[in-house]
């Protein structure tokens, strides 16, 4: 399990079981789910096409190559097993194409990467989502930032051109390489979430971020709002916290500070404010899973879901006004809505024959 990477295996025993239960529940719900509009409103990509590009840099040595492969293949597994990606919607490029020909599409050279994005440009559009994850080594010479591929490298400008060729509605670009921070400037754009493992090109040490980013999609711990889906913001925040903890546990100074940018401009933020504009899109986007209401046909259930969405929306609106309200008034209104929501959830469970949580 993902969080088994923790340094306290003895203590992890209990956690691992709990994660297993939660993951099982989520898979169960996915099987009964169908496309519907999320109330709060989480975007759902069960129907629109979603395509993932996973790229590994040149490893440099066997240790890094192995590490990069484990992360990329791990993400591949997460996408297929948990995020409902069809294998043909995942394009994995690795320095050694013979490592696992079943899932590796091509060698991760600049030529192959360009070829792939040209192909995707003809495929994606409409409501589609493009997810790109790059793992490995990057460099920065004070002017140009690069991803170190076998053969010629890809610069931040190269990647921006390739990504922007693809006319997907949403683009999620995660450059988790060292020295990746400079990519925020060139990749940010409308309906685009850019995540980098470092805050600048000067943070050049091997990054811990990708390990925890991948792990975020495997553990229930990352699902902060308990909607049984891990948004990109949740995955990002989980990885950031885990990176901090890892450095602290090792007694080392933190040498990487990830950034997230989803406003179409700006330098990116390390910490996401709850209701601020930064992170708003990343909170709505996820890579998979589906709302519990998806595919419901029973009229009574449909009504209950509708009522529940209405209360959820009222709670969201109330929270947005919190800073303008007297604390007592806010608390009273929130309690009332929370009780209403809880009652509706209980009715939905009872109507759909589910057990108590």
């Amino acid at each position, binding site marked *: 399990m993902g969080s088994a990477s*923790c*340094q*306290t*295996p*003895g*203590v*992890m*025993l*209990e*956690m691992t079981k709990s994660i297993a239960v939660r993951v099982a529940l989520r898979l169960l719900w996915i099987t009964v789910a169908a496309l519907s509009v999320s109330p709060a409103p989480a975007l759902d990509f069960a129907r629109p096409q979603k395509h993932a590009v996973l790229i590994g840099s040149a490893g440099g040595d066997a240790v890094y190559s192995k590490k990069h492969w484990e992360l990329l293949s791990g993400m591949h597994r997460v996408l297929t097993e948990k995020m409902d990606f069809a294998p043909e919607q995942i394009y994995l490029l690795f320095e050694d194409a013979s490592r696992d020909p079943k899932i590796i599409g091509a060698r991760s050279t600049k030529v192959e990467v360009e070829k792939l994005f040209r192909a995707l440009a003809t495929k994606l559009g409409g409501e589609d989502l493009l997810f790109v994850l790059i793992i490995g080594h990057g460099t920065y010479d004070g002017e140009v930032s690069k991803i170190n591929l076998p053969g010629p490298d890809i610069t931040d400008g190269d990647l921006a051109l390739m990504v922007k060729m693809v006319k997907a509605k949403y683009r999620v670009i995660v450059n988790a390489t060292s020295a990746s921070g400079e990519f925020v400037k060139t990749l940010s754009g409308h309906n685009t979430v850019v995540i980098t493992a470092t805050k600048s090109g000067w943070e050049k040490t091997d990054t811990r971020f990708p390990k925890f980013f991948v792990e975020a999609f495997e553990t*229930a*711990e*990352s*699902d*902060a*709002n*308990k*909607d049984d889906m891990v948004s990109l913001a949740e995955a990002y*925040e*989980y990885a950031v*916290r*885990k990176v901090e903890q890892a450095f*602290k*546990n090792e*007694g080392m100074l933190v040498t990487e500070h990830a950034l997230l940018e989803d406003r179409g401009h700006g330098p990116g933020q390390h910490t996401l404010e709850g209701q601020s504009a930064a992170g708003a899109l990343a909170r709505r986007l996820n890579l998979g899973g589906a709302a519990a209401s998806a595919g419901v046909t029973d009229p009574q259930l449909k009504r209950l879901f509708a009522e529940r969405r209405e209360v*959820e929306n009222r*709670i*969201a609106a109330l*929270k947005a006004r919190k800073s303008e309200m007297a604390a007592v008034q806010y*608390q009273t209104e*929130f*309690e009332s809505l*929370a*009780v209403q*929501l*809880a*009652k509706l*959830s*209980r009715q939905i*469970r009872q109507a759909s024959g589910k057990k*108590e*949580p």
Partner: protein
Amino acid sequence: MKAKIFLIFIFLLPAGFMVERTRKAVASAPFQQGEASLRQGDFKSAIADFEKAIAKNDNAGRARQGLLLAYMETGRYEEAIRAAEGFPATEAANPWLSAYRGDAERRLGRYAEAEISFKRSLELAQGQMAGRDSQAVMDARLRLADLYAFRGRAQEADAQSREVVTRLSGQEGPRTAAEYLALGRSLRRLALYHEANETLRAAVAADPESAAAFIERGRLFLEKYDHPYAAELFQQALKINRHATGALIGLAESKRVDNGAEAAELCRRALAINPRLEEAQNLLATLLIEAEDYTEALVEIEKVLQWNPHALETRALRAVCYYFLNQPKNFNAETEKVRAINSQYGRLYHLLAEFSGYRARYAQAVEFSRQAIARSPDLWSSYAALGINLLRLGDARGGRENLAMAFAKDPFDVRAKNTLDLLDTVSQYHEFTTEHFRVQLHQREAAVLQPYVADLLEKAYRALALRFRFQPPAPIFVEMYPNHADFAVRTFGLPGIAASGACFGKVVVMDSPSAKDLKDFNWGSTLWHELTHVFTLQSTENRLPRWFSEGLSVFEEQRAHEGWGTSFKKAFLKAFAQKSLLKLKDLNRGFVRPQTPEQVPASYHQAGLICDYIDRRYGFDRILGLLEQYRNQVPTDQAFKNILGVSLEEFDADFFKYVDTLKLVPPEKATEDPEELIRTSEANFEAHLKLAEVQVKQGGAPAIRRAIDLLSAALYINPFEQKVHETLAGLFMQQNQVDEAIREYRVIVALTPVDMAKAHYDLAHALHVRGNKKEARIEVLKALEIAPKFESAQELLLNLTP
């Protein structure tokens, strides 16, 4: 013709000298050779060469100056005076010869004669110069200023210094390195430290080959506690002149705190050049006093008094020794002698305050600092010491006031500045009280640490009060700092100490776990160790020797918890194998003047083992008996005879025999057995977790209780690991120890985990089980505010809603 000028700064720069280079080459061989030998520090050859030059009338006047300088540099003070007296009448008008003669007289404690010589030097120099004062005038004034200050005649000293400042800071300003140096020294004497620093910097720039300029700057920074930078400056001076005794002594003083052995070695190097160098002997005595070896210190002191019975600092150090040897009659007699030399000599009390602080007698240190200030109201370092010691006694207001005074008058005092800066962060700390303690934790970790700190403190208090049959009055102050530099500043006013905890009697300060590598620090054992000091220091009125205080703290740590107090064992085993364990009479040196860095931890463990041995062989009552003896100021050898019935030599023999029976050998290879790791390493977090996992898998009440104990112990190493708290909370719930589970869940919330909604929900659930519906409702609503769809929380809310 301009005379080639030799300058000597005999008092501020003990035995250092600077030779101003000639503008014109001097041809005669003996004089030239003498000058070269003098510059290279080959004083024996210099004396022979100058004697030849005088005999051959080769630059005889300047050769005579060189000869006197060489005598001074080698401690041949009487010969310098005799030589000066024997010089021909034609030399009577040479102001430098009078100046050097005065230097020699001062070195021998003939202060009145020295004053006459310096005044004559000034008159001669003034008579020879028209217009701008000569360097000889400036130097005569500097000598007089030093002497007046030394005798407590501050106004006269200031007048001479002001005269130099007025002359050299006029329109023209200083022209040469020597003039910058004279001005810098005068400014320093007038407490204009910033200006002095700038001027001395200019002196170095004007002549980068002037060792004296580096030494003078070094002394300025040394005076202001910036020891690392001072050391750099002294090293620069030694690169220029490796025989500059002023630089050697300055460097020794810079190293005094961090490396006493090196400081002593530097003193010995200086004494090899000048065997009658007062400053070197004084520093050697100081190092011995710090090691609480007053008898040996007196031996060093006596050496100085043989040639200078009126050596002020030496007399003051002698008074210090008598004070700590509890010889009030001798102490009073010595202080009278000090007063006879300088009735305003506040430094005597400053030294008493300093060494009282070393012996953890902070109340006495405060009293002495006040006496120092009463005698020398401009002794700003005493205000800083007073402030720091008041803080150590828990008087925050008094501490701040005196530190502010010190800093206002002397902004270079880094101890005052650092401590004031730390005090300015007080708003970042959270304070809470328990029955016996007032505790200060940093806000960012208070919610996590507080329950465990409070619990451990009261547990330790109960255990130690029972054991020592003594109850220190409340409140005992405990402060934990998440930044090691802050802890160091709180302890000594300076960063850069290796210790993790310190006890001032009623105040304990220490690193919090955030300040350390979480893999090699056990804050629980450290707290227990320091708290033991509270009991032993207070019950003896801070009179027990360092080895016994540390030994009892290590011993009590070891008794308190499996594996605690083991971190120094490795160094001890090595010392044991190398047969380098210290005898009991020398054990204090292992703490304060170690010969090697490893001698410190080895001495801690050895002291603990000695206490363990006394307990086993004689019983703990005898340990209490020894404490009683120390409280009554009985020396160690007598205390051992009175209580254990053995001499120190007999005790050593018995103890080393006992150690032999323990068959102590360092492990051949590192063990991986977690049980063994926990027994032998107090900070092995992973071993605790591994063993706890085994216990959880095993199941059953005893195994679960053991797992709880192991995980609870792990929190004394790393209290910030969320998984440990989660597992503990789960086990407590399983054992129906709901209150303990609630404590863990509260800590998880305080850790602000990624999954905050779950953290609030888990706490709410436990509170609900406990029957605390009101708080459970508050917590579950917090969970739902983060995650409105959180179904488990929704259900709990409904259960809590009427």
